[in-house]
């Protein structure tokens, strides 16, 4: 700003001089601040994990392991079988990715490869706005519109099903998948496309046989990140999946109510007695969730890392 201001302004010169004399100090202070903030983020993650462990570990001593991985979740009657909850989360998450992956990749391909630049300028911010819709709003929308629609179209007894949850989660994972997949396509060198077209391939063939396969590790990362988003989502899932702790053993359970880990924690944490077995069990679920999310993110990071190490495409 100061360089734009006219030279005759009285306060201009003293300000500048002070700026120059203080520059090393401010720079040091800002650097220190950024460093503290950066490290504190890591510190917070570690502290949260330790807290989770402290509150959750006792359940592994209070409930025998075969009880913890049994099929009945009736916390009021001291039955803490987490298996229906884990499978419920896995079912909803995988279903949501199966829905979101083709949509996401197709959108990314359209935005990156097909759409004219003016359309791209409109689409990209719109997709980013999708990510900003609060999940409780989506959940309410799901409860009042998606669930009845699912019930009527599929003839299911109730619309509060794993499928309704997967639809909402797919919608929520889409922005992540689209942006990351688009970056992956963006990093495919222009020469690949030129080579494809030069060999007589149509635009469609070039996209489908050359560009998308070349960006597949990035697309895999997109899927992993979308999955991480989906498995941890709580509010919308709690509102539309029906929360019945059944064992989803067959694919038919996709169209029946299920109960996820996140919904269980959110629904029951509010009124649980602090320090009780139930309380520790909820944190135990938190640990399982943490480990699952960690593994998914690790897989995503590994995909990125391998891509960089091969050094091919970037």
């Amino acid at each position: 700003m100061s360089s734009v201001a006219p030279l005759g302004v009285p306060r201009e010169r003293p300000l500048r001089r002070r700026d120059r004399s203080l520059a090393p100090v401010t720079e040091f202070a800002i650097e220190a601040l950024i460093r503290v903030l950066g490290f504190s983020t890591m510190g917070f993650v570690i502290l949260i994990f330790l807290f989770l462990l402290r509150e959750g570990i006792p359940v592994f001593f209070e409930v025998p392991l075969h009880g913890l991985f049994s099929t009945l979740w009736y916390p009021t009657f001291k039955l803490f079988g987490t298996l229906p909850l884990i499978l419920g989360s896995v079912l909803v998450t995988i279903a949501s990715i199966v829905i979101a992956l083709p949509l996401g990749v197709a959108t990314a391909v359209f935005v990156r490869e097909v759409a004219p630049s003016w359309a791209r300028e409109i689409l990209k911010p719109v997709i980013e706005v999708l990510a900003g819709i609060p999940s409780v709003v989506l959940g309410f929308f799901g409860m009042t519109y998606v669930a009845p629609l699912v019930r009527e179209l599929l003839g299911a007894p109730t619309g509060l099903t794993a499928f309704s949850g997967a639809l909402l989660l797919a919608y929520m994972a889409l922005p992540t998948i689209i942006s990351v997949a688009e970056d992956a396509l963006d990093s495919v060198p222009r020469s690949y496309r030129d080579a494809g077209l030069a060999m007589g391939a149509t635009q469609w063939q070039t996209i489908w046989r050359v560009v998308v396969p070349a960006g597949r590790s990035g697309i895999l990362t997109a899927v992993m990140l979308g999955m991480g988003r989906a498995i941890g989502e709580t509010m919308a899932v709690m509102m539309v999946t029906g929360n019945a702790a059944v064992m989803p053993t067959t694919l038919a359970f996709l169209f029946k109510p299920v109960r996820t880990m996140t919904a269980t924690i959110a629904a029951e944490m509010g009124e649980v007695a602090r320090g009780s077995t139930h309380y520790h069990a909820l944190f135990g679920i938190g640990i399982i969730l943490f480990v699952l999310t960690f593994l998914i993110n690790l897989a995503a990071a590994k995909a990125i890392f391998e891509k960089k190490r091969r050094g091919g495409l970037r």
Partner: protein
Amino acid sequence: MWLAVILLAGCAVSGTVGSGASAKAGPAAITLQNTGSDTLVNLALAWAEKYMELHPDIRISVTGGGSGTGIAALINRTIQIANASREMSAEEIAAAKENGVTPVRFTVALDAIAVVENPRNPVAGLTISQVSDIYTGKLKRWDQAGGADRPVVLLSRESNSGTYVYFLEQVVRQGNPNGPELFSPETLLMSSSEGITSEVRQNPNAIGYDGLGYVTADMKKVAIARKAGAPFVLPSAKSVRDGSYPISRPLFMYTSGEPDGKIKAYLDWVLHDGQEQVKELGFVPLPGSGK
């Protein structure tokens, strides 16, 4: 997102701790200990908060733990008021007398649970044992209970609500609190009254239950009969007050001897102005309270 969940959970926990500490009154305050029924605990808390607002010189600390816990504490003279969702047993009264405590009972509110369904559902009345069979998963289709050829979708409150436990004991287990029946695992557990309302409103297969005060006009209340052959009674403030509606019960506060001073003032307030909170929390106010 999991991060946010855990942070939120952490906040919720620290939040309760914080509010407990901030409720401390001045040194001159009189403290009333009020312990007992988990069904009553939220109502008792609402009363205590409102009353402390009106009378800053009095401090009422409310804890749950169950009716038995509250009554035992009253017998042991560690509290002044016990909350109970059942009457004291003969043994408990004898033990109290032995300890020099004469328990005095006050009915402070009425609790009724309405069974609700979609207005398009033709089923008008069910017996307690039919409702039990529906919720344990024995009756899976409405035509087995005189309705249309449709599957039944079970809705329940979350397992930590007092309504859940009462419904389980009085209806699913048909009055035997330690019976073997459990809610079917296929029961949809809704975390809020709104969840039940919204599903019952638009799904003709659904059956749900909730405190009478939470039932809105766009849901159909089911008339309940104690047993086959008995009359079907719709839940209403009137049928709850005259005792003809089966899924209802009075809620009590017990004091040690006839209360006087601050305790009497508090109970008088509960029985009159406090009935406003009774209505707000979905219970049925006492007859003659005008609320």
